[in-house]
């Protein structure tokens, strides 16, 4: 399969990239890892006239916390999934992300694919969107005219659609640093390594003296976009992680899902997996003594 013809531009500075984006806007697509974009171009679902390769830009490969771990974890647009999978920082401090990273596609694809690229691609079956929703992260977008920080809850605008403007470049994703008693995980049902999620569930919980102070639940593959199960989250806040509270949250999350029957399973089956996975994730949180 061969993509349509395009003009290839490889800027070497961020300013240059942003002015190219401003100039070409709708005609251009940004190439980072390319593990979603290039397959789409080969199928000619995407046929950009201009491809702006950002792999040569400096300053987009950072994976670090700011404000001595009291601010945000900042993930640059060129941080590969393989780097996230190997990150000791994620293992120690960001368990939801550490659990999700090894489940993204397969090891070879993870060497190229990026978290920020996955967010921008906005596939409803993409894993990182649910993680960002559960962790209440944000995307930093830059353009020739300025910068804005877009909360995850406002970023996704439907299947394969975000609120990014054509002249904007997503330069970074940010995740708030965890509180002292936080836990999370990501559970993914897939038919085989490299498959998209049949169902994915991101869970993140913070507690104080055993009482939930913040809960985040993101759902993958069970709606037209990644879903933040807000009712389930709110049902947990202010309560202990008792069996009853967990059961209630799991039911609310299942009710928030909007799965469709397809080759990976029936809608009823997927909704049931959401229920089971949310409960399992919260029980793991309890076992990890977040409470």
């Amino acid at each position, binding site marked *: 399969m061969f993509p349509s013809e395009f003009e290839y531009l490889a800027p070497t500075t961020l300013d240059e990239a942003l002015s190219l984006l401003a100039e070409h806007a709708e005609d251009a697509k940004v190439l980072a890892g390319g593990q979603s974009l290039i397959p789409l171009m080969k199928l000619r679902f995407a046929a950009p006239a201009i491809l702006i390769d950002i792999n040569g830009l400096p300053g987009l490969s950072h994976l670090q916390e700011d404000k001595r771990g009291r601010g945000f974890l900042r993930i640059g647009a060129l941080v590969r999934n393989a780097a996230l999978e190997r990150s000791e920082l994620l293992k120690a401090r960001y368990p939801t992300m550490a659990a999700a990273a090894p489940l993204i596609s397969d*090891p070879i694809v993870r060497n*190229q694919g990026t978290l920020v690229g996955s967010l921008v691609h906005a596939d409803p079956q993409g894993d990182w969107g649910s993680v960002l929703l559960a962790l209440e992260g944000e995307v930093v977008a830059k353009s020739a005219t300025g910068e804005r920080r877009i909360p995850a809850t406002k970023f996704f605008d439907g299947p394969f659609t975000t609120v990014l403007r054509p002249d904007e470049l997503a330069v970074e994703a940010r995740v708030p640093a965890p509180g002292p008693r936080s836990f999370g995980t990501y559970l993914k049902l897939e038919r085989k390594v490299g498959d998209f999620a049949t169902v994915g569930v991101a869970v993140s919980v913070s507690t104080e003296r055993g009482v939930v102070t913040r809960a985040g639940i993101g759902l993958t593959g069970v709606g037209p976009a990644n879903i933040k199960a807000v009712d389930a989250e709110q049902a947990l806040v202010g309560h202990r992680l008792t069996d009853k509270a967990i059961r209630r949250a799991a039911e609310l999350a299942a009710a928030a899902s909007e799965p469709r029957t397809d080759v990976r399973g029936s809608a009823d089956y997927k909704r049931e997996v959401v229920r089971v996975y949310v409960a399992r994730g919260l029980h793991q949180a309890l076992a990890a003594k977040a409470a």
Partner: protein
Amino acid sequence: MHRSITVTVNGQARTAEVEPRMLLVHFLREVLDLRGAHVGCDTTSCGACAVLVDGVPVKSCTMFAVQVDGKSLTTVEGLASNGQKHAIQEGFKEEHGLQCGFCTPAMMLVASALLEENPNPSEREIRWAISGNLCRCTGYQNIVKAVQHAAATLHPQPAGRTE
């Protein structure tokens, strides 16, 4: 619209004019006549086209040739040196790690990259590393043995590591 790229392939600098839309796998096979990278699924699933770019496995059907300008590539043709098989090739031969051979070049490259990073991998780590490479013949058992054989050759251990 053609672009000039220079790539070091198996230690040798190669320069060519390519269309931006030319995929790396076609550049290797059709421009450089290196047929070891196979087009299997052509949909980023099977891993038969995997080659090493600066030592890192990538699916060459999911990368444009223009993206590797200035980089160093290793294909299966570059594994042997001075007429000597690479330890991973020896392993695949000794342990019968192939049947039809279609997945084998990429399988060996991915395994060699694993052994660079992790000289003494556990069986689980080997299976994890090759989980992006499909083999429809072997059931993977002999491939795992082949990688273990290569690891033992490259880095002899007093006692084998267990799970």
